[in-house]
Every structure is written in C-alpha cells, then in structure tokens.
C-alpha cells in the first residue's frame, strides 16, 4: 500500500535562490506528522508544491501514490490544503463558502449540507451563519477555512500553521479535531512554530533547514544522542542554529 505522502529529491528555486534543495520525505498513512523549521527554511514552499500550487523544478511528489504533477486530479481529490493565511471570499456567508468548496470536490449537495452543519457546529460557528465572512475575526476565518478543508473528508491534510490566530479554546478544539481525524485514518502534516504543539501531537517530526530535511523521527529518536537536551526546543535550536551541520535524518 502506498504511503500517504512520498517526496523524493525535491528542488525548487526562486530567482536562483534554492528554497527547497533535494528534500526527501516519506509519511505513512494515518500519521500525525509535524514539519518544523526556521523562517525561510522551505516549509511553506514544500507544502505548496505538495498541494499543487507551485511546480517543482525537479523531483517527485506522490499523494497516496498519485503523482501531483502527472496525476494532479487524483492527488488533489484526496488532499486538503490549509494555507498559513487562508484567503476567503469576504462577500460570502459561511454556508455559501462551504457549499462552493464542497462543489469543487464534487460532494453531493445533501452530504455537503450535513457535513457543513456538523463542522460549523463543532467549530462553534453555527451562530455566525448569517454574517458575511468579511465581518469575521482572524480566528473565525481560520476555523471556517479549516471547515472548508475538512468538508470533503480528505485522506491527507496539509496544514500550514493551522493554529495561527486562534484563542486557547479554539486551538484546543482544532487540535482535538485533528487528533480525531488521525484516529479515523487521515494523515495530517502540519507546520508550526509552536514547538510544544508538535511535541505533544505529532507521532513523528521532521526538521527542515535550508531546503532539506536535517532530522526526522519520533521525539525519542530525535532525543537520541543525549547531548542534545531534553525538549524539542533544545533539539530544534541546536540543529538549526547557524553553523550547525544538521543530523542525518
């Protein structure tokens, strides 16, 4: 059975500057995976290539065995992508937005409507159905964007900083939803700068720097060499500091 996500020798340059530089990453099905890295490490570019938003210069990306370049339709059908600053249609209302997103993934009307009601209720947005999205706060927009990502019941979720702008209660709610999805067999790949979240939620963690994976494994595996400190923050800072060579993944 193919892996949820298989990235091989991925390269992408912007104006001659490498953003992703020979990145390899394999994530099995049903895993909660955190992708960490300092600013400009290539996380977002990698995720945008996986979601089919940016074309790679070189290398392959397979989502559940479907090549994102040559079989984009099949790959995208099972994928949900939540960008770090999700843009929404300000003039639409939440149900109209979700109806549109469900239409893009060819979800039948009845199923979509039921899922939309369920998601909006779960995300505590059911009292905002009459408001236009342009009136929503940052956190409400983030929750609605997440509802959009979930409405087609994706097998693989790619989430770029999904907890940005959420208050403590909403962040907890979203984390619970993601954990539940993983229990149901969904694969979740997220980036975050809040290392505690990665430490607590992710089964495996990849640390990316200068466009390539420099460390990967469970928390125990990352601790590996005891010289590296105890917390993920210690490990992360040690691996990504200037001059650090990076451990072999």
């Amino acid at each position, binding site marked *: 059975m193919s892996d949820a996500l298989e990235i091989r020798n991925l390269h992408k340059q912007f104006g001659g500057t490498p953003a992703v530089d020979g990145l390899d990453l394999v994530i099995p099905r049903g895993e909660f995976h955190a992708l960490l890295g300092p600013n400009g490490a290539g996380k977002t570019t990698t995720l945008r290539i996986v979601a089919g938003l940016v074309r790679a210069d070189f290398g392959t990306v397979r989502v559940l065995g479907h090549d994102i370049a040559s079989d*984009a339709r099949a790959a995208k059908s099972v994928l949900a992508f939540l960008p770090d600053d999700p843009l929404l249609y300000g003039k639409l209302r939440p149900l109209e937005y979700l109806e549109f997103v469900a239409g893009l993934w060819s979800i039948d009307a009845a199923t979509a409507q039921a899922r939309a009601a369920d998601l909006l209720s779960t995300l505590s947005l059911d009292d905002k159905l009459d408001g236009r999205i342009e009136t929503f706060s940052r956190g409400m927009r983030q929750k609605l964007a997440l509802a959009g990502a979930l409405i087609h019941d994706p097998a693989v979720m790619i989430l770029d900083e999904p907890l940005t702008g959420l208050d403590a209660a909403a962040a907890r709610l979203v984390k619970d939803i993601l954990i539940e999805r993983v229990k149901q067999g969904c694969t979740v790949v997220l980036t975050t700068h809040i290392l505690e979240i990665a430490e607590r939620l992710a089964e495996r963690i990849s640390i990316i720097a200068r466009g390539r994976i420099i460390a990967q494994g469970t928390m125990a595996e990352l601790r590996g060499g005891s010289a590296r400190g105890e917390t993920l923050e210690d490990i992360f800072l040690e691996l990504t500091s200037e001059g650090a060579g990076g451990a072999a993944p």
Partner: protein
Amino acid sequence: MARRLKPATWPWLFAHEARLMWRTAGGAHLVLVLGFCAVAMLLAHLVGWALMRHLDLEAMLRTRSTIVVWSGAILLLFILSMAFGLAVSAIFSRGDMDLLLSSPVPIRGIYTVRAISVALGSIALFSLLLLPIANMAAVLGRWRSLAGYPVLLSVGLLCAALAFAGTLGLARALGARRARVAAQVLGAVAGAFVVLASQFFNLMPKYTQDAVARWIKSDASAAWLGPNSLLTWPVRAFFGDPLPAVAMLALGFGGFALTMHLTAGSFASAAQESAVAASPRWRPGARRRGFRSGLARIVIAKELILIARDPMLIAKALLQVLYLVPMLMILVRRGDLAQVLAASLVVMASSVAGTFAWLTVSGEEVPDLLQSSPISRERMRWLKVCAALLPVGVLIVPFLAWYAWLSLRVFAIVAVFAAAGVASAAVIQVWTGKPSATRDLKARGRQNVLMNFVELFCSLGWAAACFLAISGYYRYIPAGVALGVAGPGAAWLVRQWRDRNELSAGA
C-alpha cells in the same frame, strides 16, 4: 528625503506620501514612466507654443466667451471627479491608515497632508497639459501666465476640499459603507456631467433648442456666458488676470484651510468607521436554502453572488455603460440609428463582458483553494466566464428585442456580432487572465495594458463588421472580422508563450 526631516511633522508626512505616490505611479517601470512624461512634456510645450502664438485671450473672450466658460467648467469638473476618487481612497482604503491613526501624530496633520496629496494627485495629469501652455505664454512675453502654477494648485486644493467635504458629508448621512460607493459614483458622474449635459441639448425638441440658442445670444445670458461673467474667472486667473487670480487663490487656499479646519473630526470618525464599515446588514435568522448540486451551478452562483454583493464593482461597470449614453443620444438624433447604434451596442457589450470576465477570472480572491482543488484551471475559467456573461446577456436583451421588432435581418446581424464581441472579450480573459487576488478594477488597467488595447481593438473590429453588414457593404466585412478575430488570436499566442515558459520553468 524623509529620513532627513524631523519625524511626525507635516513635511515628514508629506515626504512619506510623496514617496508612496511616486512609487505607485512608477512601480517597476519608473524609467518608462519618466521617459513617457518627458516626451509628453516636450510635445505639450510644442503645442503650447503653437497655441500661444495665436491665442489672444481678450479677443477670444469678446467673441467666444461661451467656449471659455465651457472649457473652464469641463476642466474643473474633471479635476473634481479625479479628486472625489482620490478622496474616497484616502478616507476609506485601509492601507496605512490603521498605523497612522494609532500613532501619536495629530489627526489634523495626517488629514491635511492626505488632502494636499489628493489635491496634487487630482491636478497632476492636467498639469502636464496646462502648465506647458503657461510656460510658453511666458516665453512669448506674457509673463503673468506663470500665475497658472499657483492658480492650478488652488483649483486642486478647492476640488480636494469639495471632494473631502462631500465624501465626509455622505459618510455622516449614509454611513461609511454606502458613502464610499455614493462618493465614487458622484465623482464619476461629475466627470461625465458635462458630456451628458451637452447631449441633453441634442435630445431637446427643435423649438426648445431654438429657445436655448436665442437665450445664449441674448443679453440675458451675458451675466453667465458673457466676457465679464464670473464663470470666465478660472480661465482668466490661469492666464494671470490679477483680480480673478487673487480671487481664485483666495477661494482655493481659503476654502481648503476652512474645510480642513471644519472636517478634521469627521475625517477621523469616517476613517475609524471604515475599519468596520465592510460589515453588511446583518440578517439574523434569514431563511436558508439547501445546497445546490453540480459544479457549474455552484460556481456560477458563487460568481454572481460576489458580483451582486459588491456595489462598487457594479457602479464602476455600469459607468462604462453610462459613458456610452451620450453617444447613443447623438445617434438617436441623427436617424442613422440602426447601423451606428448597433455598432455601439457591440462595443458596449464587449466592454462590459471584458470587465466582468476580468473580475471573475483575474479577480479571484482565493486562488489557492481553486488551484488545490481537483478541478482543472481551464474548466474553472470557462465556468467563471459563463457567470460573467449572464449579466451582459441581461443588459443587451432589451436592445436585441428592439432590433427584432425593427427588422429580423438587423436583429440577426446584431445578435451575431454582439455575441462575437462578447465571446472574444471572454476568450481574451480566459487565455491571458492572471489571478490578482483583487477585485479592484483599477488593477485591470495596470495588469496587462497590451491585452486591454487588444481587447479594445477587437471590439472595434466586431463593431465595424456589424456596421458594414447592416449598411450592406458586404465586401468590407472581412476587414472588421479580421480585426475582431485578431484579439483572440493574440490572446492564444500569449497563452502558448506563457505555457511554454511555465513548462520550461518547471522542467
């Protein structure tokens, strides 16, 4: 320059504004813009020299004072129109307003500097045309014409003051959200007013036209249109007539200072209110319908909702139609109605179709979502264009019905060429449109100037073919059709070139 000035002072704020205006005007093509301005100034000076060698203002006032009055009025209204557009942006566009309002800089200073920027912005284009005339008049010995510089500035200040006072008054009366749209429409109508008003004359019955003509020639009109009329003062002031010049300077600078003094508080309120003014009417408990099924229905419905809920876009698009009204009025009076009206209809339909197609294809607010969905870009674009063309259909159906009643032959010709024009405009957008994440129509002009020209010539081609077909000049029709087809052809070539570049970039 801003770095050397004392922070938070008016000059410092003004330097900041100037820098933003300069970079907005030039963008990535600053050298091109400067080159264009230099050539335009050179040409304008040549024209100014030729004009001022022969123009005798006093003689013209004695013999053709009506022309002087109308020229001044047209210029003032155009500058006022420009000022309204800029004032709306200054008040309601968020930009750096949150930053400025949250800073300890006094609001009056921010407001005044913004308003001066609006004044300068509204006369910038006219300066290129008018100041060379003043320069050449001075070179030819009429040095008082250099008064044109401060007079033009005072006109800009006066128009800026009127625009701010009007917009802020509307904001107080209607609320920020409605005021924004109302002020923009008001500004556009001010610009079109002279053209529209002049055409109302053509629509008047013959006896009314004669009566107006008699009034213009009579002594009764002298107070308004005669050589000593106050309405000639703006032009007199520009050429340095002392009393009108002093009056215009006093009116402009004084009016501006007074408006700033009286409306600074309203500016602060309107700017703050605009931060939450995007809020529409809240309709709790509105009846909800079920979800639609089928991608086409959902995409078309979504695009139509977005168009319908953005009154500013509708206002701007409909203004395109408004500017064609005078042309239609002329045609109605002349009786060559069928041919030329049909040609105008083809241009109008193509133009509106191009605008709506741009809105749906390039003004996509959430490109990431669409790109990450399993729907192909091409299919999505065509669905969007279908949505864009529905309002155009609604717009031209009454005209077509009228033609069907008039003559089935003419109806068939108009329907075919209007459809060709609309389809060409749509195809050009589908093949060349790029997501801009903005639905601001101003972005359309900036985004792809070349294709905008292609679209214009294409619609003119179909209009010409339509005119020739109705008039019976069949042998010349291929020329119009060729021009019409050239638009989509050029768009196809652009698309091929773009696809090749994307492929080579991604290889």
